[in-house]
């Protein structure tokens, strides 16, 4: 459909990012494809080490070199392949068109500068504003992200701020140039629960104000349920299921997603049941098998997934699953949430 195509602001195709370590090649991201629509919030979920963060860092080409390298794929943003751009062009995109919020606000601010100074930096770097203008502009930003007494706090140093306030400052820095994409890499992991909610509300609110898209990376399924429009579930460097948030929560079709859903505590559960963790551990990303990577932990193995990795197929409209038995889940042949 032509209309939806125009709506795509970012398209990642078969992205592969490998790390060349002494022990061997770590295939951290191994063929990730997704797209991001205008004004949409996309959630990327998965357990630690499944390649969520590396995917995000790859988009901005911030993979630590020379250990890490993007070995394949395309990242199309505004008609250009980010993987083919030079360092100068990338610097113009980073923090300007695409910006990023990091996990730990305690360490993401430079301790020797005042917070005001750091918010000003992205304005000075990208918009070449004069100092006075940048000052006024960054005061506005600090007000926008809800820093109380922002005029005084402008001249405070990061260590004088609490974690939540620092994350607000990080957000102010990230949205300074009204980017079209905001990547949030576990933005609330380091914060306590009440502050988490505030920060997420703030991001959601700002998304509507600035008309940007958000990629939110998290392992908190609750966060995804509330804020994301679509969700990509990753496992061992690959997307295993990609669909709308409702589909992922109510009609999961990949055994891994189903397992994830079963291992979440729910307040509305009638019976007091034990959580059902997924058995086993994720595979080492060095020497990945030819077969389905989830096979070792899967209850629904078949002969086909032993031979080769199941491709990500569109099983129903906008619902992608990489499992040969996805259709059986869909048609109810296999009971999802039974034992």
């Amino acid at each position, binding site marked *: 459909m032509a209309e939806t195509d125009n709506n795509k602001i970012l398209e990642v195709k078969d992205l592969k990012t490998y790390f060349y370590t002494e022990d061997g090649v770590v295939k951290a991201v191994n063929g990730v494809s997704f797209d991001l629509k205008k004004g949409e919030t996309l959630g990327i979920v998965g357990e630690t080490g499944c390649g969520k963060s590396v995917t995000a860092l790859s988009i901005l080409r911030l993979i630590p070199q020379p250990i890490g390298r993007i070995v394949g794929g395309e990242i199309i943003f505004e008609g250009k392949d980010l993987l083919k751009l030079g360092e100068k062009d990338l*610097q113009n995109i980073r923090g300007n068109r695409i910006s990023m919020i990091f996990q730990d606000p305690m360490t993401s601010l430079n301790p020797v500068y005042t917070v005001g100074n750091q918010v000003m930096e992205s304005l000075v770097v990208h918009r070449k504003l004069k100092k006075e203008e940048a000052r006024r502009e960054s005061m506005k930003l600090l007000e926008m992200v809800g820093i109380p007494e922002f005029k005084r706090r402008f001249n405070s140093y990061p260590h004088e701020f609490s974690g939540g306030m620092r994350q607000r400052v990080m957000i102010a820095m990230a949205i300074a140039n009204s980017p079209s994409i905001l990547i949030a890499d576990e933005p609330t992991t380091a914060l306590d629960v009440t502050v988490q909610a505030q920060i997420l509300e703030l991001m959601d609110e700002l998304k509507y104000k600035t008309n940007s898209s958000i990629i939110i990376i998290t392992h908190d399924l609750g966060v995804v349920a509330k804020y994301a429009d679509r969700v990509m579930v990753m496992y061992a460097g690959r997307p295993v299921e990609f669909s709308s948030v409702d589909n992922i929560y109510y009609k999961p079709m990949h055994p891994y997603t189903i397992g994830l859903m079963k291992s979440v505590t729910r307040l509305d559960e009638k019976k007091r049941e034990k959580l059902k963790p997924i058995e086993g551990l994720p595979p080492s990303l060095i020497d990945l098998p030819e077969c389905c990577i989830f096979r070792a932990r899967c209850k629904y193995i078949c002969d086909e997934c032993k031979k080769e990795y199941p491709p990500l197929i569109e099983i129903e409209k906008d619902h992608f699953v990489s499992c040969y038995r996805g259709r059986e889940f869909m048609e109810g042949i296999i009971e999802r949430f039974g034992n």
Partner: protein
Amino acid sequence: MATIKELEVLEEIETGKKYSRTSLYKDAWKRLRRNKLAMLGLSIVILLILIAIFAPLIAPYDPILRIKEDSSLGPSINHLFGTDLLGRDIFSRVIYGSRISIEVGVIAVGISVIIGLFFGALSGYFGGISDAVIMRIADIFFAFPYILGAIAIMTILGPGIVNIFIAIGILGWASIARIFRSSILTIKNKEYIEAARALGASNNRIITKHIFPNSFAPIIVYATMNVGTAIIVEAALSFLGIGVQPPTPAWGKMLADSMAYIDNAPWMMFFPGLAILITVLGFVLLGDGLRDAFDPKLK
């Protein structure tokens, strides 16, 4: 209607004057001020710099003026530190000698800091081959005993004050580069550097605006202490006769000249020696205090 007083307060808030803020360096300064020994060191250093600047006003005599009939006098009201063999006033010579020591200390260390920062940054930030090459060259410099290296360079370049700057400056870069490299290596992997990169900052900007200010503390400490070392090396070179040339007054040279008369005229040696001791002590105390001030956890 706001009163004038209120407006003033608003203005202060606006400009951020009133709000107490504590930057890393302000904090360090606060701690430094509480450290008595460090403040003693700082006073010595400031006093010395003042003496060097105002030497002509303080010194009662011309330091190279010979008064024949006053030769080899002990300390007295006329000649506070006595006179030397050629009848020159030792007090005036010690005063003027501070100029050479301070110049050597500041300029030579300045040269090593500039060279060291450049190569340290190159090596720490970019790593790879440049790192390996620079650090191996630094190893070569470390392999030379400091004084021996200085003597070798001075022999090649010939005596003279400018050559002393060069010799000591070149010899000192390796340690500065090492220290700077290691602090860059720690800072470089901090998240705020990654955040700055995600913000679109260029390499240059990241090095100068984010890495430098955060890795400066150890350099300040080391450079301060190194001024003391540089002064000693200059004194040693002058003592050996390949440093500052006569008749320019230099403490090391004064020691060398009066060595033979230590039994009969100990003051000739005592006062220049004392000057060197106090000066170096001042810089070391200050450096020590700075280190404690920058790292409050260290005790």
